[in-house]
């Protein structure tokens, strides 16, 4: 089998040996692709389809209640008005996280491109990206040590001003945003860095030799030219953030109720899978709408 599929490639070779049992190339191509796409179908596409079906059920099909197909689950935002507030909270957390990441990350990328070069730049880039590839859960957990009352931040303050009160703000929405910014900032730095590196130095030299100040260069040249990096970074941060549940749970405590934690609760505590499925699908619809809106920018971003 293995021999067959690879031998068939000889059709393309100018004078490759043709054996009489050569297979058409579409068969070998299919054989190469089938395991991957079969696996993805089983693990991703069929589950999403099943979840879609579940979102129309009246109850989880494990109890004794008879199952009826209904649109009830999608009326949750009307029947349970507190969900609207939770939805807004999630969007706001997503908005602030993305904004902070955009400002801090863009400036960091500018600093990387304009103030460093060669080995130093390479090393700094690796140092910036390294935390991104480590366990997100552990990094969120590490913020509890810094932000809690009498934690690292408080101790730092008390070294300077021993009588000051506590500035620890664990279990607030600010803590959630700080943890999320920490988690996703390297993403923004990377996408902006890729966009900024591509800008020709001569443009900036020309601008400054014509008397442009740094803020003119920043807002009139760097930001517009690096906009694809900024936008794709923002999209790729906003989407996971509005679906996050572990960060709000650990850093937000009792105030950390978001769409993510509500969905998690439906699956692990309330055992109302159809409601969880419909909320998950509503979230997915938001995600797809965002992708559709920015698909042009994202495609250019990945092609570069």
């Amino acid at each position, binding site marked *: 089998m293995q021999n067959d599929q690879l031998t068939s490639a000889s059709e*393309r070779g100018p004078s490759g040996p043709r054996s009489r049992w050569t297979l058409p190339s579409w068969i070998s191509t299919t054989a190469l692709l089938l395991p991957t796409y079969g696996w993805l179908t089983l693990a991703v596409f069929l589950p999403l389809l099943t979840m879609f079906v579940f979102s129309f059920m009246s109850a989880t099909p494990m109890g004794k209640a008879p199952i009826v197909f209904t649109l009830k689950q999608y009326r949750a935002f009307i029947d349970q008005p507190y969900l609207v507030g939770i939805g807004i909270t999630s969007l706001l957390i997503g908005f602030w996280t993305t904004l902070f990441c955009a400002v801090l990350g863009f400036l960091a990328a500018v600093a990387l491109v304009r103030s460093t070069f060669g080995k130093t730049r390479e090393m700094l880039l690796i140092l910036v990206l390294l935390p991104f590839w*480590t366990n997100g859960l552990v990094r969120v*957990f590490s913020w509890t*040590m810094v932000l809690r009352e009498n934690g690292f931040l408080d*101790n730092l303050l008390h070294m300077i001003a021993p009588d000051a009160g506590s500035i620890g703000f664990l279990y607030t929405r600010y803590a959630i945003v700080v943890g999320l910014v920490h988690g996703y900032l390297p993403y923004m730095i990377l996408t902006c860095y890729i966009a900024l590196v591509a800008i020709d130095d001569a443009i900036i030299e020309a601008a400054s030799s014509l008397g442009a100040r740094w803020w003119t260069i920043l807002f009139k040249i760097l930001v517009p030219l690096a906009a694809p990096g900024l936008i794709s970074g923002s999209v790729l941060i906003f989407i996971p953030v509005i679906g996050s549940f572990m960060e709000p749970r650990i850093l937000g405590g009792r105030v950390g109720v978001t769409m993510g934690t509500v969905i998690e609760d439906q699956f692990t505590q309330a055992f109302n899978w159809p409601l969880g499925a419909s909320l998950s699908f509503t979230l997915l619809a938001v995600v797809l709408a965002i*992708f559709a809106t920015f698909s042009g920018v994202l495609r250019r971003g990945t092609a570069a």
Partner: protein
Amino acid sequence: MKPLGRIYLVAILIFLYTPILVMMAMGFNASPLYELPFSFSLQWYQALWSNTVLLTAGLNSIIIATITAVLATTLGTMASVALSRRTFRGKSLLQLMLLPPIAIPWLITGTAMLIFFYWSGIGRGMHALLIGHVALAIPYVVLVVGTGFRTIRSDLEEAAMSLGSTPVHAFFSVTLPLLYPSILGAALFAFAVSLDQFVISYFLATPGYTTLPVQIYSSIRKGFTPEINAISTVLLLGSMTIILIFARFAKPGDTRDKR
């Protein structure tokens, strides 16, 4: 501007590394309530050594990550050969189909897997975790190996074949050796993706079979001790090492022609 930019970068690095370093330091602090002043102690690492629940979860994580790396790299490399070297209809659709595991929030994918695996009788546990982890890792493998394909020239294979080499022989003696840094990089990447995966594991793990991140999460929610810092430190240093080795092999930014 140059010094200002560098000061800013240092500030960003301080922001990124402070919590991690504080967390690591607290694993060496004697107080179980994270109280200062700091007094050095290895007791949490010693306690870890006899904590079979965490150690078993850690071993599970390593086993799952290893199998995931092997399976995802094999399948992903095969798909990458077809996607990089063949032309056929529907290719861009297939490439698009690699995005959902990366782009859809894991919460959605994880809950969908929970529903489907329950409904279809696959159930939860180790096999379910493996199915999920491999699916998440495959797209990354295809991307990394695909990048590798772009850096080697197809005319080398064709040259070998026109000189009488069979395609199989050409693939294994010309393409594969040139591609091997990318494949190794992809395998390490898949290993790291699986090792760090929490959200999907959380929905597919059973009380009897958990991975390290899931076990850490439930420990954090139950009220934590510096033992969690100790195991977290081990996990972080492990992931960082793998990623640094990955960067060494795959050189993601390197697009020079390899001859």
